């Protein structure tokens, strides 16, 4: 079978808003695919097209081998969905909502339901209107995870969960993945994406800017270099890939496209290096670069895996540092604001 989610050149407008502007997305069977982008970039819109709730204006969307618009009801047997903003029926208890959604989908796994209620510490007897945002989200998560569906489509499923519950969520997603199911995970929480996702797609203003593994993406961005040199660091501005040059008495700070790092370091060494600090982009920098206006010049061409060959060499050099950056627990921070 083809990949469970294939989206090509998708377009969707709401009146004058061009919400999707040639979006590409591909999630392979059995992977957890991160779906990232600033607010209003079109993540929820893409998901709603995949669910057959919105009809695309142009482009191709294939869900589990079928047409999400035409075959919605039959395809939905195999998927479970958690909306970004969970609204429940105020008069029903959480347990009732879970059962209702489960039955409408065609049954749920009773043992799992019980396990999930326990793990998420959810009181199923409370009326939906009395649940907090996080608890409403848990209700939708329990309903989705108890379904044992082949494909989970989750729209910012943890944005109301506390860190402990976010941890429980991660454990369950790993379990679902181990069972061979596919997960599309839209999220603003980078640590979560890093911890869970095999591959990510970053979108911006309705179009995909990057897609690939996190390691792939790192090579497509800039490295920060801080150096002190014997001779004044002139001529650096002329080196390919160098930007944001700043000089403060003998010290020079600049950004360099990771694939041109070699050239920049060679130039510095010709000036006589006294000290050199370089660090690969932290995850946050990575996303801020993609979300913000400072796009590297090769961004936008970002077809899945496009540049991975040429950046292979760089990968080794910055590998150690990048792992460190990724493991930094302080990174559990949203980037909702994007770059001003």
């Amino acid at each position, binding site marked *: 079978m083809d990949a469970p989610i294939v989206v090509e050149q998708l377009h969707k407008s*709401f009146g004058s808003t061009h919400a999707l502007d040639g979006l590409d997305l591909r999630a392979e069977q059995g992977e957890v695919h991160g779906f990232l982008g600033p607010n209003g970039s079109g993540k929820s819109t893409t998901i*709603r097209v995949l*669910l*057959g*709730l*919105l*009809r695309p204006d142009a482009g191709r969307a294939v869900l589990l081998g079928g047409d999400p618009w035409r075959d*919605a*009801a*039959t395809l*939905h*047997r195999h*998927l*479970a*969905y958690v*909306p970004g*903003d969970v*609204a*429940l*029926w*105020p*008069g*029903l*208890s959480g*347990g*009732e*909502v*879970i*059962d*209702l*959604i489960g*039955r*409408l*989908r*065609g049954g749920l796994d009773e043992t799992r339901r019980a396990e999930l209620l326990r793990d998420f510490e959810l009181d*199923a*007897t*409370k*009326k939906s*209107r*009395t649940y907090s945002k996080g608890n409403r989200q848990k209700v*939708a998560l329990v309903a989705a995870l108890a379904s044992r569906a082949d494909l989970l489509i989750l729209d910012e499923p943890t944005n109301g969960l506390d860190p402990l519950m976010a941890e429980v969520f991660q454990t369950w997603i790993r379990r679902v993945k181990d069972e061979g199911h596919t997960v599309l995970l839209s999220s603003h929480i980078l640590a979560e994406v890093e911890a869970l996702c095999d591959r990510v797609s970053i979108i911006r203003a309705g179009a995909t800017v990057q897609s690939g593994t996190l390691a792939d993406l790192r090579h497509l961005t800039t490295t920060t270099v801080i150096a002190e040199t014997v001779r004044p660091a002139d001529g650096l501005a002329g080196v390919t890939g160098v930007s944001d040059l700043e000089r403060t008495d003998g010290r020079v700070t600049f950004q360099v496209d990771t694939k041109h790092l070699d050239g920049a370091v060679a130039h510095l060494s010709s000036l006589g290096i006294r000290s050199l600090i370089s660090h690969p982009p932290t995850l946050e920098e990575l996303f801020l670069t993609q979300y913000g206006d400072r796009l590297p010049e090769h961004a936008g061409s970002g077809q899945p895996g496009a540049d991975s060959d040429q950046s292979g060499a760089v990968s080794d050099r910055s590998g150690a540092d990048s792992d460190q950056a990724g493991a930094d627990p302080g990174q559990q921070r949203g980037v909702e604001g994007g770059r001003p």
Partner: protein
Amino acid sequence: MSGLIGTGQLVRLFLRLDRVHLPLWIVGIVGIVAASASAVQGLYTTPELRAGYAATVTNSPAAIAMSGPPQALDTVGGITLFEINLTAAVGVSLMAIFLTVRHTRAEEEAGRTELLRAGVLGRHAPLAAALIVVGGASLLVGLLLAASLTGLGLPASGSMLFGSSMACLGVVFCAVTAVAAQLTEHARAALGMSVAVLGVAWALRSLGDVRESALTWASPVGWVQAVHAFGAERWWPLLLPVATAVGLTAVAVELTRRRDVGAGLVPPRPGPARASHLLSSVPGLALRQQRSSLLWWSVGLFLAGLAFGSFGEEVTTMLEDNPELGELLGGGGDDLVAGYFGLILLILVLIVACFTVSSVQRLRSEEAAARAELVLATRTPRASWQLGWLGVTAVGTVLVTLATGVGVAVADTLVSGSAERFGELLAATAAYLPAIAVIGGLAAALHGWAPRLSLLVWVVLAGCFVVGWLGDLLEIPEAVRNLSPFNLTPRMPLESMDWGVALSLSVLAGLLLALAVLGFRRRDVGVA
């Protein structure tokens, strides 16, 4: 008064949000009332004609029950008032109720009040702003009514008095609704409670006026009609609604102080941990969501049926006392009774249609609240979701219609002591089902194709009321009247059942339903 900070900003916000609603209500009410009033002018030019009119309605409990106390009927102004009372008073009250709910509980239920209050808004600002906007709208309606009556050449003092009384009525119901909005967590329930208060107020006034008892004074509608515009003209009864409005506002403020944002006064109880068998399908869900409102509508309309059904026999009694009246009105006694029932049944089924429309429009609120997508992301096809809800609407409509018919028939049986008309009255009510189905079908088709235009169906329903209740007065041409499915339906028991019409209307309703399904299949979900 830090509790009122930000009221001004909120008032501006509400006015902007209401830029369609407010003009629609105001122009609608004033337009219909002014048109009716203008139709009366020139009809009763001589004292003899006015005496004839007075003799007719003074002896008609039905007319008094519907319109108000017969007073100053020897003047054109008095006759005008008698003709426009129902429309004006119910219009103003409903406007006040709907707009107040819209800006208090509905906002809070949607969570927007929370956002506002987290800003620089005082605790009482939302309530105060709602009262200002709705009170202002009521005053404006009163003023415009006064101006249009004066414009028609009626005495200015009486016109002003009538306009003020309608404004006061609006203010009272604004305050009633403000209290109801504090008592419950749901906009719908607040709406239901307030409309029920209006229904009870109207029934008390009807009973009081028909039986000439003091019961009238227990009703805000009775108070504002007690000013006797164009007659004795007294202003003091208006102190009652004003004082009541102030008192109720104080109660609402006190209740606001005592509860949390978003909560009602009654703490919620826990529910079951597992769903019953009922909650396994869309109809089950729809029924669960609507069962309490279904119950209230049935009970309310059953009681309304009882109240208005009990007057039928008085028509007979009156004719026995006054045989020449029957001749004057042309037609025998039985025809008059049948005519009375035809008229009240028409009004009652129009109210049933309001239930149907609001039930159909739950599709839209499910969609707007993003609950529809939870269901549509399961293996439920769109048509099943839609038809599942509409099926419950259909069954509910039949139940509410039957409750209404049974209410009327039971009251008539009790009062007249014979069950002779029981079956007839029930059949007469049920005969309107195809007409109601057409309106429900229209609501569904609008939801299917253009959810943003859903409001239109209420305009159509108001049109059905106008041609049904004011058609004669406004001399609306037959062809236009027959655009209303309620007008096409024979007014049994006076007229006889017309199966052809019933069949055509049913087919039309079916077509509208098919159109609804077709439209909903083609459009985006969640853009409502």
